[in-house]
Each structure stands twice: as C-alpha cells, then as structure tokens.
C-alpha cells in the first residue's frame, strides 16, 4: 500500500467517515478535525497496515480511537435531549431567525421529516454508552460486519454482539416511548411541529405517511420499526443532503445547549 493508493481509497469513503464522526460528536468542527487527524495518522502509520482487514476498516479504527479519546471525558447526553433543546430553542429568537434565513436562502435549507428523523437519532443515540453508540452506528448505519466492528473497536465478536444488542434494545425502547411517528402516545412531535414552521403549506400527515416507518407504525414488531428507522438514517448524508445546512445548524444549537446543560447537571 502506498500513500497514493491510501489517498485514493480514503477519498472513496471520506464522506461516510465524516458523517460517522459527526454522528458521534454532534460537532461539524470536531468531525472535520478528526477526519483530518485520521488521514494524517493513517499516512504516518501506513507501513504498519498489514492488510489483515480492509483499509476502510483500519481507517475507521483510527478514527474511532481518535473520537473515543475526544469523547471519553465528556458526559453522555440524556434520553430526553430533544425536550431540553426544544425548551432552549423556544427562548432563543436568534436561532429561529437564523434557521429561517437558511431555510429561505440556502440550497441545502430544505426541511424534510425524514431528515429530522436522522437528526433526532444522532441526538438521542448520544445517550447510549460510548461503546454501544459506536457499535450501533457501525453496524446499523455503516453496514460493517460484527468481525469488522470487533477490529475497529478492539473488542471480541461476543462483546460487539453484546454492545449491539443492548444499544439496539435501549434505542428501540426510547423511540417507542418518545416518537409519535410510531406510537400515538409518544411524547415527541418535533418533526411534524418543525415541518409546520418550515413548510407551512404542507400537510404534515401527508408527508409522514410517505415514510415507511410511520406507515407501518401499527406493526407490533418494534425491532422491525427500528430497522426501518435505520433505513431512513442510512439514506441520509448529513453533509450533502438538501437539508444539510438547516439540520447542521440545528445540531450545532443542540450541542451548545447540551454542553451548557451538562455543566450544571
């Protein structure tokens, strides 16, 4: 493997890597920095890459370690992160004004409910313990196999299965309690509320039924509904989608709110 090939291959999955780090850190700047550091580290240590795994797995391993080092000292977010951030946003006129400006002026300023589902998952998954969070992302969003994840997070296959199972089970339960798209009693309606603000001429219910997860909300198989949620998340590149600028602006707001909240709690 030479550095030219590294650069070529790195470019082919850089987008996935950057969105993976964004989903872990909820910070655009951290994602940029960690991806850059990952490339430098991979370049420096290229001679130690022996081809036991794919280059992509090896690079994701470097990135995961850098992100873990970055996140280890930070508190995990609470399950009700979106409630806390909503309250903060409602008292922040500036946030809504900026969001409206993006909505009306940016080519990546559209609002779509499925984009918000992805955004919401990014926020709520940060309530999982770190190893579970990484494992769920790597398996459910980036399609790595258990063995590859074991290499990436330096754990046994058995522990990857444990992290995946517990992480998934927790997320299934949290979304079942919270998400009104899949549970009429769900406490969170933010995606449809925001749709009303950003797309006032749209009928939110008509938009909702376009999403398979919401269409199948009556299915008692909660695991299946979670799989459908993951399909939505998987289909969205948070840096490249038509809603990217609007959602990243919102994510930055939520991260700042959580940083303040966690200082005091």
């Amino acid at each position: 493997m030479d550095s030219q090939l590294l650069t070529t291959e790195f470019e082919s999955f850089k987008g996935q890597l950057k969105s993976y780090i964004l989903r872990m850190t909820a910070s655009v700047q951290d994602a940029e920095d960690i991806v850059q550091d990952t490339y430098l580290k991979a370049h420096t240590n290229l001679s130690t890459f022996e081809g036991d795994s794919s280059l992509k797995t090896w690079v994701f391993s470097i990135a995961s370690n850098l992100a873990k080092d970055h996140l280890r000292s930070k508190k995990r977010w609470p399950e009700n992160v979106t409630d806390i951030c909503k309250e903060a946003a409602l008292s922040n006129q500036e946030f809504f004004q900026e969001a409206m400006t993006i909505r009306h002026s940016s080519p990546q300023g559209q609002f779509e409910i499925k984009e918000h589902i992805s955004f919401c998952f990014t926020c709520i998954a940060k309530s999982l313990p770190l190893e579970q969070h990484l494992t769920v992302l790597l398996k459910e969003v980036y399609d790595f196999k258990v063995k590859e994840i074991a290499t990436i997070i330096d754990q046994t296959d058995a522990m990857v299965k444990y992290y995946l199972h517990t992480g998934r089970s927790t997320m299934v339960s949290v979304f079942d309690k919270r998400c009104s798209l899949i549970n009429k009693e769900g406490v969170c309606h933010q995606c449809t509320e925001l749709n009303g603000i950003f797309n006032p001429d749209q009928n939110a219910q008509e938009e909702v039924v376009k999403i398979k997860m919401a269409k199948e909300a009556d299915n008692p198989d909660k695991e299946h509904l979670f799989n459908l949620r993951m399909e939505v998340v998987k289909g969205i590149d948070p840096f490249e989608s038509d809603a990217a600028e609007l959602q990243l602006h919102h994510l930055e707001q939520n991260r700042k709110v959580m940083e303040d909240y966690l200082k005091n709690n």
Partner: protein
Amino acid sequence: MMTTATLSAQDGKATTVKKTFSRATSVSILIDSDVSIIWALLTNASDFPRWNSTVLSIDGEIKVGEKIKLKSYLDPDRTFKIKIKEIIKDQKMVWGDAMGTRVFTLTKTEKGVLFSMDEKIASPMFPLFAGQIPSFDESFEKYAADLKKEAELIAKGK
C-alpha cells in the same frame, strides 16, 4: 465424570438448605453463550431491569468496593444496600451486606458456561427474623432463566 447430583444442579431449579442460624439458596444453569457476554450482563447495573424480571432497579456501579442500591420485585418497598466485595472478571463476583453474602460464579465447560448463584444468610439472630424473609427459590430460578435467555439471544446475533 459428572454425577447425577451435578447434572440436576444445572437445570435452573433452586434449592434451599435451612439451618438454625442460616439459610442458603443456590441455583445453577448451563448457558450456551460466551462468558464475556454473561459477565457483561451481570456487571452492567443500569441495564438489569431490561432483561432481568426480578430486578426493579440497581443504582451505582458494579465495581469492587462500590455500594449499590438494589430494588427487587421480591420486596419492592425495600432498597437493599449491597457492597461489591470481590470481582474476578469472567469468573466470580461476591456481593454482601451485614446479613448475607451472594456469590456469582461462571465456569466454562464443554457444553457452555455454568452460571451459579448462591446466597447465604447467616447470623446468631437469624431465628428471630427467619420467618419474615421470603423464599428466594422462585426469584433465583427466574434470575437464572432470564440470564440464560438473554445471553443466548445475544450470542446468536449476527
């Protein structure tokens, strides 16, 4: 060679031995899973209520020297304050309070991992309150069955 007694002790049925100044309850069950998965389930305090139908909540961290607060369906109004006395990763864990000691052991066998849980309550005062302590048998059997079910489910994951 395994004796009949050894085999019957792995079926998830609890046994209790009562003496004048003590009571000991034991359960063992064979689990077809990786020992690290079983160990992770036994040591992740906050995750217990998700898979263990005998536990309402555990507050605290399961680490040597730490004290945890356990609420059980067996006596939901009471909070047990328990000290984690000993941990040998993937093998043994000892919890206890002033009255009793609970020992969890994991033994790798050719057929899987043998999980055993033993609790002994012993005190010179035991005869005075023995009648107030409910039987642990059913709770121990549920505990072992839940652990087996969850650990085997995780091990089968792809």
